[in-house]
């Protein structure tokens, strides 16, 4: 009973946090636009009016701030749910799309798409997913050849991740025009989000989320070991493959928006699991709330700290994420050792 009450508090805080962060990221930015103008632009919808003052507010809202906030929202939930899926389906809380090479695979192919088909946002999204999927399959294949243990999986992932990162660095060095914002891409950030790339990543996010929802009831059985799960009626191998597929869809779509923003996929799922225990459906909802809220906070700080200059959000993510994560881990250790 007490647990349920605590969980409800966590839900409510998450919802409020998400709303506040979304509002703040709409209301703040490089250009001073009054909040009442923005609000009126919001009510008018995405039609751009003729008169000058109202036009400015509408353009800023619908072509700059809204896409950016939406990209934050989508990649926050995409990366954290992707991390959650990997951690639960492969039974290893150290996994995240950024760690086992999914992000760097996607990033590498985003750069290739940037060279081969400059400006084609839908190809960028498709390549991003393909790169993520390719990296995941290489890692899982390598790890299963060497016996799918927790350590080999991470080692294979880190190795593949280095390979793709090296490839990306080579491309950026030889063809600086392949990506608009080099630093922002490798650290992860939202400065070059366009509504076109947003639109074409949407099908990937939708597919990943629907697949996750379909798989959700069986995912917790992975925790009981493959033999028990299979005995309880779960087709373990297929379910695991689909979980990884879903994780790559979400991570690939996120990378096509925000570059190599890795860390959120590790910390949010772990924090969520510490807070609520191993209950996948609850954890998905918590990831949906806290992933985006946390990413928006980082993006907000990245934009405001050295205003009018902007830092990549990935930098802030590491700077505040790591100490927070470590402190939670240490607190937990203390609690367990008592």
């Amino acid at each position, binding site marked *: 009973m007490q647990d349920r009450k605590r969980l409800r508090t966590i839900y409510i805080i998450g919802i409020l946090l998400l709303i506040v962060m979304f509002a703040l990221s709409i209301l703040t930015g490089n250009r001073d636009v009054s909040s009442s103008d923005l609000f009126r632009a919001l009510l008018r919808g995405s039609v751009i009016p003729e008169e000058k003052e109202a036009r400015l507010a509408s353009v800023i809202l619908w072509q700059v701030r809204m896409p950016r906030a939406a990209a934050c929202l989508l990649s926050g939930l995409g990366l954290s749910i992707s991390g959650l899926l990997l951690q639960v389906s492969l039974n290893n809380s150290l996994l995240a799309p950024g760690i086992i090479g999914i992000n760097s695979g996607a990033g590498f192919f985003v750069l290739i798409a940037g060279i081969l088909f400059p400006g084609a946002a839908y190809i960028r999204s498709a390549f991003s997913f393909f790169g993520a999927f390719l990296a995941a399959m290489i890692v899982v294949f390598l790890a299963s050849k060497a016996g799918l243990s927790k350590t080999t999986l991470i080692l294979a992932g880190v190795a593949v991740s280095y390979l793709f990162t090296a490839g990306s660095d080579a491309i950026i060095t030889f063809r600086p025009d392949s990506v608009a914002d080099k630093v922002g891409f490798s650290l992860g950030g939202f400065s070059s989000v366009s509504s076109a790339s947003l639109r074409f990543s949407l099908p990937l996010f939708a597919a990943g989320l629907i697949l996750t929802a379909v798989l959700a*009831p069986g995912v*917790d059985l992975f925790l009981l*070991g493959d*033999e*028990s799960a299979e005995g309880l*009626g779960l087709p373990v191998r297929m379910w695991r493959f689909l979980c990884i597929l879903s994780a790559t869809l979400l991570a690939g779509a996120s990378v096509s928006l925000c570059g190599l923003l890795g860390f959120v996929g590790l910390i949010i799922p772990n924090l969520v699991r510490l807070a609520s225990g*191993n209950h996948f459906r609850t954890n998905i909802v918590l990831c949906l709330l806290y992933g985006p809220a946390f990413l928006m906070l980082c993006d907000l700080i990245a934009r405001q700290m050295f205003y009018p200059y902007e830092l990549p959000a990935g930098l802030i993510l590491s700077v505040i994420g790591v100490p927070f994560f470590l402190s939670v881990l240490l607190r937990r250790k203390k609690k367990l050792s008592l």
Partner: protein
Amino acid sequence: MLILQQVKTGYGKKQVVEVDELSFADRKISILIGCNGSGKSTLLKAMAGILPYKGEILLTDPASDHPGANVKCRDFLSVRELPHRLRARKIGILPQSQPVPDMDAFTLVMHGRFSRLAWPGRPGKRDIEAVERAFQICGIEKFCDRNLPQLSGGERQLCYLAMVIAQDPEIFLLDEPMSAMDISHQMRIMEILRRLKEEGKTIIMTSHDLPQSFTLADQIALIRQGKLLCKGSPEELSGKPDLVKEVMGAAVRKAAGEGLLYPYVLASDI
């Protein structure tokens, strides 16, 4: 009835077990006895349908009430061809070693209902009743809210057994359910197994504890190096001490005296 015909199974290319003909009667406790590494666990996993096998493993289906299942013959269901969920409603397995996930006992036992839950997996009244009944059968109601890492090994084993009971299969396959437990937990589990038998369940388990198996079993199958050596009731097998000794290294003899927990004792002087 569970029937094995020319079953060969193992891990990857390595064949571990080969059984020509073996059947297990309904509503009885059958125990596979063999040394460590004899292949009894492997055989159990094949019977549960969680390990690929050659040959045929069949379930008799008196009701034949599942025309949707992809089966060749109406009276026999091939374990291999049963869809996952349907199979899990007929056969439940308790593997020998279980991980210790950070979850409470109630959640664990509720996972037993997986094959009976429709998407999105919200348990109904019947599922909650089944879980409560499983807790009550195992006598572990007080662990309901406890997290598995806080429980002892024996208590956790009871929770996992409750999970399989909540699954409510017709056939229980239990892989050494009493190994590494203290005697009071072992007695508790024997009591639970007898109760399940009375309720009409079929129980097939593995063990290497001879006196206990001879006391509990209706049927015993001796397995040596992946082959079925002999099958019979405890009385029949206690009349063949040399055979038992050949498999296990010690024979079993009826003990004299009253009030014994196990009316059979180990004997080396055959």
